[in-house]
């Protein structure tokens, strides 16, 4: 709980006032939904209950990873606000963050363990935790006996909750022996590898440093929807005189606010970057000193550009006039410091990694890397140096199999079905919803159908739960303690338990403990995971001296005073010491060559539309959700409760489609039917459908998305990414 002293700008007193104003003074056990609006005078007089304020941390797979303050009264979560002590969150939240009470108290929560008779039948029955764990444990032991190892058991856990404690579910799997693991990361690995080849790893400047930029290129990134708190710093930079350029095939919300928007042809970003390099080269606008001091291979790179790249070619590739490329290149090279924010959207292509390398090279030759207000920003994992105590567990002695088996998360269905010696017989899904979020939904479904048992730990009846045998209710982050950091900003936010677990929900670590107890009861020594423990103490076990030093704290409990920011945050690569084999920025990367790529940042041809499928479907994030979370909540449904397909007016006219007409979007994999939204925010050669899960709607853009690997990702994340935006389709009015 927060220290209730005066230092804190949002004191307990002002919270009490706030509560008085809301009239939210229901008696113990009263639902928060019984609050009657109005009746203000009465409510003001009726204070007296004690409100407590807790620190929470939004654990979603989002740049912003917000610091939240939650107000709890009589054990009920009354409201949330941003924590003003976090200078990135700045006391504000996004629409999703402000909707959390509706998630915690949603009537749709999975309330207790349930068993389904027949996957997909909807024939669920409530069972006790003991029954559920017994059934699961018996299955694990039976599989181990039958196959001689636990390798037929596969875990698919990823980004639904990035709280460090949630790695306990991986820990539980390590504790039963060697198992199969969904490996990789769907959304961003091509860019990670690109920056790893160039600089040794991913490190970005503190996003709060953007206010120091004089020129910002937002390249294939939409912070206005996906990182609202960053958008404030972009706007602040603008106010201080910075020019903001957005490059995107979609006129995104971000692009709409930019000074200059370039409607680039999808997947040709590398061609634009290389065209700009050519101009900078010809006009000697590069930073020769920086290149000689900090890089290797720039001569070869310049040679490649001189021999292979022309502005005419770049213009033809990208659809951007030569004169515009020239102006952009001159402005970018001449205005210092200049910052490029490389989005995850633009690397979800078969040439995504190569495109990121080309953009990195542009930032490097202009000497913008290692500068405040400069940089080629992608992401960082520098604040993630936890002990991973919950995750790193040892297998029982004598475990067979030798090591865990990697199953490509990005082609999950096919790889589960194709696994041999031993086959995969059991799935455990946590913090994921592959039935809506993975490509090739029909193959995912087949993989689920082929299992002996599917267990999913969830909060809602997602399509993944619908295809499971047993569902286990998990807590929200208000109901159990944890610790969170971001892959973008440099803050660490403690997550305190604010309310008791709802219904019979349990935290992933608790589930692991209970399952371990059951396994050991049935077969002593079959699981090494601790069978009991205090969750808050487990949070403490994640810390070490390096983290304390990095964040300037003595003890993790110091975080109870408020979030802290890493001391080494401000400027990435400031010292010019890169983590590549040469220690320099590598235009020529032997590592890249080892992984089958050209050693230089060259242009790799983009995927093109075909006669049968002439339109590219781009399926980016939607502003009211993060993947399959939030759009199912009633407050979101009040704003928007239906997906649509965005089509350019000329494209629509060609197909005889009018606004709100039902449109079938299809390819040889599948189809979806959606109402048309005619808009010039999209290009003529693309359609846009936002990925999401709407409850009670058979809507899933991944019905049409193939599991085509992106060019990079294998080095840093074990598997290449997915080319989500190389999805070619046709449309017809129905």
């Amino acid at each position, binding site marked *: 709980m927060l220290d209730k002293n005066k230092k804190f700008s949002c004191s307990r007193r002002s919270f009490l006032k706030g509560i008085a104003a809301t009239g939210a003074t229901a008696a113990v056990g009263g639902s928060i939904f019984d609050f009657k*609006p109005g009746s203000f005078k*009465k409510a003001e007089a009726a204070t007296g209950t004690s409100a407590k304020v807790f620190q929470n941390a939004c654990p979603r797979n989002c740049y912003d990873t917000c610091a939240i303050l939650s107000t709890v009264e009589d054990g009920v979560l009354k409201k949330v606000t941003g924590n003003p002590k976090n200078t990135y969150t700045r006391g504000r939240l996004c629409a999703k*963050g402000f909707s959390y009470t509706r998630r915690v108290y949603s009537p749709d929560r999975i309330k207790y363990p349930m068993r389904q008779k027949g996957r997909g039948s909807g024939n669920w029955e409530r069972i006790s935790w003991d029954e559920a764990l017994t059934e699961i444990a018996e299955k694990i032991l039976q599989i181990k006996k039958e196959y001689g190892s636990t390798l037929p058991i596969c875990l698919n856990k990823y980004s639904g909750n990035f709280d460090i404690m949630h790695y306990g579910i991986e820990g539980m799997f390590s504790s039963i022996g060697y198992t199969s693991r969904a490996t990789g990361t769907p959304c961003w690995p091509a860019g990670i590898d690109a920056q790893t080849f160039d600089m040794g790893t991913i490190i970005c400047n503190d996003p709060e440093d953007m206010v120091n930029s004089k020129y910002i290129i937002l390249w294939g990134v939409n912070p206005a929807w996906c990182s*609202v708190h960053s*958008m404030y710093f972009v706007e602040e930079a603008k106010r201080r005189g910075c020019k903001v350029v957005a490059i995107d095939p979609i006129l995104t919300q971000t692009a709409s606010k930019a000074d200059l928007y370039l409607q680039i042809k999808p997947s040709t970003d590398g061609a634009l970057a290389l065209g700009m390099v050519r101009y900078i080269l010809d006009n000697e606008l590069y930073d020769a000193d920086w290149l000689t001091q900090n890089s290797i291979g720039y001569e070869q790179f310049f040679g490649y550009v001189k021999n292979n790249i022309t502005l005419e070619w770049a213009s033809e590739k990208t659809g951007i006039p030569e004169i515009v490329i020239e102006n952009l290149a001159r402005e970018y090279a001449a205005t210092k410091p200049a910052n490029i924010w490389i989005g995850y959207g633009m690397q979800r292509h078969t040439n995504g990694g190569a495109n990121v390398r080309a953009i990195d090279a542009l930032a490097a030759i202009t000497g913008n890397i290692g500068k405040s207000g400069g940089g080629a920003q992608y992401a960082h994992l520098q604040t993630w140096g936890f002990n991973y105590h919950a995750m790193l567990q040892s297998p029982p002695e004598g475990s067979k199999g030798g090591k865990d088996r990697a199953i490509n998360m990005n082609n999950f269905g096919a790889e589960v079905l194709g696994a041999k010696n031993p086959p995969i017989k059991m799935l455990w899904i946590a913090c994921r919803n592959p039935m809506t979020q993975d490509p090739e939904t029909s193959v995912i479904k087949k993989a689920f159908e082929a299992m002996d048992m599917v267990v999913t730990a969830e909060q809602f009846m997602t399509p993944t739960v619908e295809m499971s045998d047993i569902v286990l209710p998990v807590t929200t982050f208000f109901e159990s303690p944890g610790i969170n950091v971001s892959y973008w900003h440099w803050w660490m936010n403690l997550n305190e338990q604010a309310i008791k677990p709802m219904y019979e929900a349990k935290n992933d670590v608790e589930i692991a403990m209970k399952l371990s107890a059951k396994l050991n009861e049935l077969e002593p020594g079959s699981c090494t995971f601790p069978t009991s423990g205090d969750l808050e103490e487990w949070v403490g076990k994640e810390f070490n001296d390096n983290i304390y030093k990095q964040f300037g704290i003595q003890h993790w409990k110091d975080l109870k005073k408020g979030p802290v920011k890493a001391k080494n945050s401000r400027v990435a690569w400031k010292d010019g010491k890169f983590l590549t084999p040469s220690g320099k920025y590598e235009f020529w990367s032997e590592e890249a060559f080892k992984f089958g790529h050209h050693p230089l940042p060259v242009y790799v041809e983009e995927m093109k539309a075909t006669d049968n499928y002439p339109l590219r479907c781009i399926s980016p994030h939607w502003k009211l959700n993060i993947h399959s979370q939030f759009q199912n909540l009633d407050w979101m449904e009040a704003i928007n409760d239906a997906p649509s397909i965005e089509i350019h007016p000329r494209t629509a006219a060609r197909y005889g489609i009018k606004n709100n007409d039902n449109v079938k979007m299809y390819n040889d994999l599948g189809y979806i039917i959606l109402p048309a939204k005619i808009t010039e925010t999209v290009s003529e050669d693309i359609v846009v459908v936002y990925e999401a899960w709407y409850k009670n709607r058979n809507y899933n853009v991944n019905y049409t998305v193939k599991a085509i690997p992106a060019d990079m990702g294998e080095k840093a994340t074990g598997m290449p990414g997915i080319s989500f935006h190389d999805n070619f389709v046709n449309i017809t009015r129905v």
Partner: protein
Amino acid sequence: MAKRLSFLVNTEKCIGCHSCEMACKNYYQLDPNIRWRKVYPLHEETFTLPERNFMSLACNHCAQPECLRVCPVGAYTKRKDGIVIHDHNRCIGCRLCTMACPYQVPQFNKKYKKVEKCNMCFQRIDKGENPACVDGCPMEAITVIDLNSFDELGTVEAFAGFPDPRITQPSVRFVKPQIGFQVRRDR
């Protein structure tokens, strides 16, 4: 001198993220379909180039509030600082105000069979704090101003499609969005 409190909405800063609306719902824990503040998209066609712009609207606390004029039971009062307050206890749910307001601000809540609306967080205002929507906006696009002392230069009273402000003299001002330069393949 009495105040004339008003929302100033900067539509250039506004990114249509709905945080203001949700901050309000969160603060008052409103019923799902009740929206005291709403974010409306402005039509693409009203700009010279396709744009994504929005107008965030709550109660406009009009100088001549129609809700107050038509209410048969005196549920509405206008404070000296201009805030128009709706008293839930007095309301009989006749819905005359929902028909009279040109901005569709008062909303009928079927659960209570009464109307409700934005009160500009007057208890917070009285304590020197900002309304929840103002404090919730990540872009700081909404502020509370006093029209009696506010220099309105650079702001507008309405957009295309916004009901004529002469009817009720709404206490709301907007900063208009700027249109950036666009290099497009389709124009």
